[in-house]
C-alpha cells in the first residue's frame, strides 16, 4: 500500500520534471515545418550576437572564478589558522548574498559607483565590466566559501603551515603549493557551480547594461519562437555538465585518497 503510493508520488514528480525538458527539446527541433531539424540550433550558433554575448559571459565566469579563488582561499585559510574566533562573523558575511536579493545590491552599485561618485566605475565599459565581475564574485561567495571552508576542515592547517614554514616557505608558497592542492576538489566544485550561475545570469547584467548571455536570451525570447528553446536546451546542457564535473571531481578525489593510503 505504502509502496504503491510512494511509486505514484515518485512517478508523478518525474513526469512534472520530464515534461518541460521534453517540451523545450521537442519545440527546439520543430523550426522546419513538418519535420524535425536542427535549424533552430544552426540559426543560434551562427548568430553573431550569440557568439559575442556567450563569449562575454564565459570570460566573465572565468574572471569571477579567478578573483573568487584569490579572495576566498587566503581568507578561509587565514581565518582557520589565525583568527578562528572570527569564523562565525566571516561565515555570516559570506551568507549575506543569499539574504539580500541580487537586484537590491546591483541597485546600490549603480547609485554608489555612478559617474558623479568617488569611484566612477560605471563611467567606462571596462569599469562596468569590473563592477559586474565583482557582483558575480559576491553572488558566488556563499558557495565558494562554504566549499573551501569544508575542504579545509579535512586538512590539518596549522601542522601543514608549520611544516612548510620550517622548510622555508613564505605565505605565497604555503597558499599556492601546500593549501591550494589540498583543497583543489573544493575549489573546483565551487568554480563549476560559479560557472553555472554566472553563464546565464540576467538581473545584474541587464541592470548594468552589459552585453551578456542572460539579457541576450531574454531579448531573443521576445521576438523569436524556436531559437529561445534551443538556447534553453543549451543552457540546460551547460548546467548539467557543470554539475557532472563537480561529482566527477569529487569521485576522483576519493579514489586518489584511497590509493594514497
Amino acid at each position, binding site marked *: 500500500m505504502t509502496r504503491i503510493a510512494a511509486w505514484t508520488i515518485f512517478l508523478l514528480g518525474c513526469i512534472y520534471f520530464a515534461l518541460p525538458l521534453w517540451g523545450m527539446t521537442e519545440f527546439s527541433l520543430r523550426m522546419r515545418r513538418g519535420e524535425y531539424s536542427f535549424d533552430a540550433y544552426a540559426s543560434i550558433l551562427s548568430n553573431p550576437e550569440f557568439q559575442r554575448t556567450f563569449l562575454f559571459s564565459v570570460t566573465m565566469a572565468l574572471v569571477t572564478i579567478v578573483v573568487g579563488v584569490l579572495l576566498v582561499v587566503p581568507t578561509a585559510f587565514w581565518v582557520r589558522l589565525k583568527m578562528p574566533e572570527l569564523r562565525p562573523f566571516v561565515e555570516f558575511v559570506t551568507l549575506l548574498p543569499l539574504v539580500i536579493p541580487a537586484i537590491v545590491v546591483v541597485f546600490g552599485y549603480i547609485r554608489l559607483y555612478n559617474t558623479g561618485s568617488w569611484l566612477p566605475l560605471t563611467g567606462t565599459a571596462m569599469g562596468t565590466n569590473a563592477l559586474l565581475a565583482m557582483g558575480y564574485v559576491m553572488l558566488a561567495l556563499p558557495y565558494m566559501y562554504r566549499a573551501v571552508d569544508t575542504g579545509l576542515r579535512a586538512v590539518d592547517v596549522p601542522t601543514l603551515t608549520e611544516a612548510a614554514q620550517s622548510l622555508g616557505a613564505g605565505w605565497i608558497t604555503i597558499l599556492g603549493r601546500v593549501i591550494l592542492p589540498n583543497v583543489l576538489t573544493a575549489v573546483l566544485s565551487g568554480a563549476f557551480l560559479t560557472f553555472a550561475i554566472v553563464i546565464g545570469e540576467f538581473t545584474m547584467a541587464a541592470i548594468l547594461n552589459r552585453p551578456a548571455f542572460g539579457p541576450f536570451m531574454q531579448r531573443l525570447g521576445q521576438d523569436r519562437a524556436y531559437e529561445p*528553446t534551443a538556447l534553453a536546451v543549451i543552457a540546460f546542457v551547460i548546467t548539467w555538465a557543470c554539475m557532472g564535473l563537480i561529482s566527477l571531481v569529487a569521485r576522483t578525489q576519493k579514489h586518489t585518497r584511497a590509493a594514497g593510503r
Partner: protein
Amino acid sequence: MALTTEATRTAVSPPRLTTRLPLRWLGLLPFLLFATLFLLLPTLYIVVGAFRDGRGGWTIQNVLDLATPSIRSAYWLSIRISFWSALLGCLIGFLMAASVVLWGVPKRLRNPLLTFSGVASNFAGVPLAFAFIATLGPAGLLTLYLRTEFGINLRAYGWNLLSAWGLIVTYLFFQIPLMILIITPALDGLRREWREAAEVLGASGFQYWRMVALPILFPSILGTMALLFANAFGAVATAIALTGPSLNIAPILLYAQIRGDVLGNPHLGYALALGMIVITAAANAIYIVLRARAERWMR
C-alpha cells in the same frame, strides 16, 4: 633567501605581541574591503536612501508610501506566490525524497534523484521560463496535445502560464529539487531504532509519524520552507522572461523602477528595495534559527 631567514627568525623567536596584532588583521583586509565595497556599502546606501527625502533631510514618508495600493498589491502578490511555491515545493519535495529514502522506491534511484536535483535547482532564470513556455504556454507542447488529442482546452479551465499560478508551477521546478537536496540528509537521520521502539510500544505507522518522525523533522521542514520562500521572493529573471512587465510583483516593480523610475520618486524605489530586504531577511532568520534546532537531532 630572504624568505628563509625571515621564516627561521619567526620560528625561533616569535615577534612581540604589539607587532603581531595588526598583522593578523592584515590577512583579512582583502576580504573585508571586498565585502564592504561590493556588498555592505551598496546595501547600506539603499537602506539609508529609503529614509531620506529629495532635499537631503530624514523622513519615514517613503516607507509609509509603500502602503499605496499598487505597491501594496505588488508585495502581497509576491508574498502569495512565494508562499504557495514554497509550501508546494516543500510538500512535493518531501514526499519524493521520502518515497526513495523510506517508502520502498528502490535505493538505486536515490543518487540519480539527488544528481538531478542538483542540476534542476540551478536551472533557473531565463531558460527555465522558455522551457515552460514551450510546454504549457498558449502554443506549448502539452497545451496543444491536450487540445488536439483529448479536446481539453486548458485555457477554458482558467489556465494561463503568464499568471501568478503559472509562475508558481514554474518556480516549483527549482523549489522541489532544493527541498529534496536539503531534506534527504534529515530523512537519513531518522534512526531505525526510533521506528522499532515506537512499534514495540504498540504505535501504528500513523502514530509513529505524528508523534515521533514529524516532530523531529518539523524544524527542518519549516526552516526549508522559509528558505524556499526567500528563494522565490528574490527571483527576478524567471518572472521577467515568463511574464514580461505584465505581472505586478515586487521584484518586477523594482526592476522597472531601477530602469526607468516608474514610481516617479527615487527614494520610494529605495524603500521598495528595503521592503524586499526585510522580507527575505526575516525568512532567512527563521531558516537559520530552525536549522540550529533541527541539527540537535542529527548527530
